[in-house]
Structures are given as C-alpha cells and as structure tokens.
C-alpha cells in the first residue's frame, strides 16, 4: 500500500538540502498549517453542500441545483456571500469576547482536525496520548459557545449557551467512556498505533459486542457534542431563533457554521479511526484474494469513504428525528447513555481479559 510518508519524506529531504534545519522546520510547519486550513475549508464547503443535498433528498426535494451542475458550487457562492456581508456591531455587547468567541470555536476544531490520521503516512500530530488530546481539544469549543452566548447580550443566546454548556459537558462523558473501551482493547492511546492494530480486523469486528455498543454510543454522544440533529438544543431554532449565534453575522457567523460542520466531520473521523480501522482496508481473515484487491484501493479513499458513511448516518438521524427537550436530553445522557457506557466498559475489560 502506498504511503504518504514517501511524499512527506521527499519534501522533508528537499527542504533540508536547500536550507538549515531551523528554517526547514519552519517552512514545514507553515506548509502543514496551510494544508490543514485549506483541507478544513474545502471539507467544510463539501460537507455543507452534501448536507443540503442529502437533507433535500430525505425531504423529497432536489436541493441546490442552480450554481454549477447539480449545484456543486452552491457552497462556494454562499461562502463568497458570507464574506461580503456586513459584520453587525451589537450594542452593549462585550466586544472583545464577542469577537474572540468565534475563534475559540474554530481553533478547537482545527486543533482536533490536525490530529486525525487521514491516510497512511498523512498524520500531522501523533502524540502517544492522542485519544486524550482529541477529547481535550475538542471540548475547547464549548468555551467559545459559552462566550458567544454570554457576550452577545441577548436572552436567546444566553439560554442557548447555558443549554450547550450543560449538554456538551454531559455528553463528553459518554464520548470519552466509549473511546476508553477501545483504549482498553488496543492498550494504547496513540492514534497511529490504534490504526495499525486494525490491519487484520477492525476493532468493531475484533471487539465483539462491546465494541459495537461503544461505536453506537460514541456516534450518539459525538452527535450530541456537535450540537446537531435531535440534540441541537443550543441552537433550537423553533424557540431560540438561532441559539448562541443569533447575533452573529457575516464571516463571524461563518466561523460557527464551518466549525459545526467540521465538528461533525471530526466526530465521524474519530469514529472511523477508533472503530472502523481508520485508513485500513477491509480485511477478512482467510480471504487472501479479496484482501489483496482491497489493498489496491488507496488508504485515503478508505478513510474518507468510511468517514462519509458515518457522516451520512449523522445526517440521516438529524433529518429524521425531532429535537429533544433539555430535560429529556440530560436524562437520556445520565440515565441511559452513561450507564450503558459504564457497563460496556466493564464488558470490554472482561472481554479483553478473556
């Protein structure tokens, strides 16, 4: 299987051949930063388009179909529009925090984005505590949401922010516990190591029932963390108009919008990495020919294919169900999801010991 490390090594070598170590490192950092930002923006645009199209199909509609063939440039046009829009100044808002909030949200998701192994050898940050890092950084977003809600000086945003605070902190527990089951199974927290271990069989197959349960609970909890679907309490448009980002306009709103979609992607990507083998192809023990054919498919396609599957599931759920009420939301987490996760953790431990 072709590895991206050949490409990255070549860039590394050629940079070192023309400049000193320090400079080469600086240029590499910049390159990685630019690459991540570009990928971030492109992915977000793609996801916005995909969501609108998929949502339309679920609703018996066609969706965007005017800008470009099948409307594929719709989100580009929207991006241009959002860039041209006026940034409305809100009276009596906390100006500094109001502006900073959007960056908190987007920085949280970019940092997480960098840690995802996209393909073989395409992995910007690879800590030995990768899982730990992911959960830690991805919860930075809640700070941004709380700040946004508080600094806007509006009652809608305030309620939205408070809801989101309660929601994100609760669901982080379930998400963390679900990831922990895989950590138990793999014995490591390093993402690259976790993906490597799934070469023969993905954890969702290898881990048996506990892994399947963990996968589902992770998808639910992750979905809730992204404020989407039935869990979009903080931005419940039927009561809070747009929740915490009611007062934002132009590109500041765009940041929230991008972050929302990227968070959905990140949750799907983590689910892929942890449960569905990351960029590893589908291998069935004993079927050598089949396995070899699967190996020909590039790893990056495997990764994005599986991620898209998870995202599709999320869209499907989002466009099927009504929104939960805040007390339902919290009792679902504390009374159903978390007990299941805890029991599942024990199950997995037993499974690993056996």
């Amino acid at each position, binding site marked *: 299987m072709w590895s991206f490390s050949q490409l990255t090594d070549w860039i590394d070598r050629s940079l070192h051949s023309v400049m000193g170590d320090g400079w080469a490192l600086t240029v590499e950092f910049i390159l990685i930063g630019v690459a991540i930002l570009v990928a971030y923006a492109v992915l977000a645009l793609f996801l916005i388009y995909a969501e609108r199209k998929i949502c339309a199909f679920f609703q018996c509609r066609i969706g965007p179909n005017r800008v470009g063939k099948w409307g594929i440039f719709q989100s580009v046009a929207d991006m241009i529009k959002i860039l041209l829009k006026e940034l409305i100044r809100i009276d009596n808002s906390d100006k500094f925090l109001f502006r900073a909030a959007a960056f908190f949200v987007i920085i949280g998701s970019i940092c997480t984005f960098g840690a995802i192994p996209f393909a073989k050898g395409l992995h910007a940050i690879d800590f030995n505590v990768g899982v730990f890092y992911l959960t830690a950084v991805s919860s930075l977003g809640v700070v941004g949401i709380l700040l946004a809600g508080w600094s806007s000086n509006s009652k809608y945003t305030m309620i939205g922010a408070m809801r989101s605070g309660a929601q994100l902190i609760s669901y982080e527990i379930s998400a963390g516990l679900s990831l922990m089951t895989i950590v138990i199974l793999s014995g490591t927290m390093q993402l690259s190591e976790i993906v490597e271990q799934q070469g023969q069989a993905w954890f969702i197959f290898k881990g048996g029932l506990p892994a399947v349960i963990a996968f589902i609970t992770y998808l639910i909890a992750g979905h809730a963390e992204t404020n989407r679907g039935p869990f979009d309490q903080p931005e419940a448009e039927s009561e809070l108009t747009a929740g915490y980002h009611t007062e934002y306009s132009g590109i500041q709103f765009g940041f929230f919008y991008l972050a929302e979609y990227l968070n959905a992607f990140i949750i799907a990507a983590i689910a892929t990495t942890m449960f569905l083998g990351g960029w590893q192809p589908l291998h069935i023990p004993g079927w050598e020919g089949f396995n070899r054919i699967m190996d020909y498919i590039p790893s990056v396609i495997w990764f994005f294919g599986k991620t898209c599957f998870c995202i599709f599931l999320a869209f499907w759920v989002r466009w099927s*169900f009504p929104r939960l009420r805040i007390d339902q939301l919290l009792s679902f987490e504390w009374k159903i999801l978390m007990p299941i996760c805890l029991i599942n953790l024990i199950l997995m431990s037993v499974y690993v010991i056996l």
Partner: protein
Amino acid sequence: MNAGKYIKNIFVGIYRLCQGMYITMLNFCRPKITEQYPENRGKKIYGERFRGLLTMPHDSENHHKCIACGICMNNCPNGTIKVITRMEKDETTGRDRKVLDRYIYNLGSCIFCGLCTRSCPQQAIEWSNNFEHSVFDPGKLIKQLNREGSSLAPKKTE
C-alpha cells in the same frame, strides 16, 4: 423504575427510531417532487381555471364584448377596476350611446376573488392563467385591458 421495563423501553425506543429512519430512507429513494420553475414553463402545472390575470379577450377584428355597464366596477371589493366611458354616436341608430373608452385594471390591488367575471353580463372579461406579474415599477401594474382602437363587437344578427 424496574429494570425489565427500563431495558424494554430502550429496545422499543430503538425499534421505533429505526422505523422513523426507514420512512426517511424510503423517501430518500422516492422520486422528488420539486418543480423546477423556469424549465417547466411550457408544461401545464396549474389548473385551467387558475385565476392569474384579468383579461379582456378581443377577436380578430379588434372587437371586445364590454358594454361599459360598470357592474364589475361596482362589484369589485377593492376598487381595482375603473371603467372609463365616452359617448359615441351609434352608426345604425344614429343616437348617442355610452361606449368603453378605457378599462383600467389595477393588478396591484386585485385579490382575485372573481366577482367581476362572475357578475359580468356579457362575459367580456375572463381570467388568464398567466401568473408572472412581477415588475420593477409599480406603475406598470395598472393595466389597460381594452386594446387601442378596439370597439364593441357588433351584435350578431340571427
């Protein structure tokens, strides 16, 4: 809560949720219902009785059927119609009679209730299906329905 009921609730809930997702997936695969507007212009997407725009049909000799009685004007709840008449000498009888000068129809205040067409004793006005009314200048919504130089159709001799 007893444990059996708790677990049963979870499974029933999952089953019901799956049912909902089945319905949405069913619709995902169904043909779509969106009408694509400028493309379907030629097709008949509205009923033939659809009240789009009040018109006064003219025949090939530029005759209309309006006798300028003003019943439509009196029946209109919004004062949308103005029938402006003039006196003209009748060629056959030689007497002065009232004929239609201008039939002014203000589309902007029309509510498409159909009282004018229903009350017209001569069926001189009728609805067309045209629904593309948007203009940039509101003055253009005030339309004259009788054509330039048109006149009342002569009575058919039987």
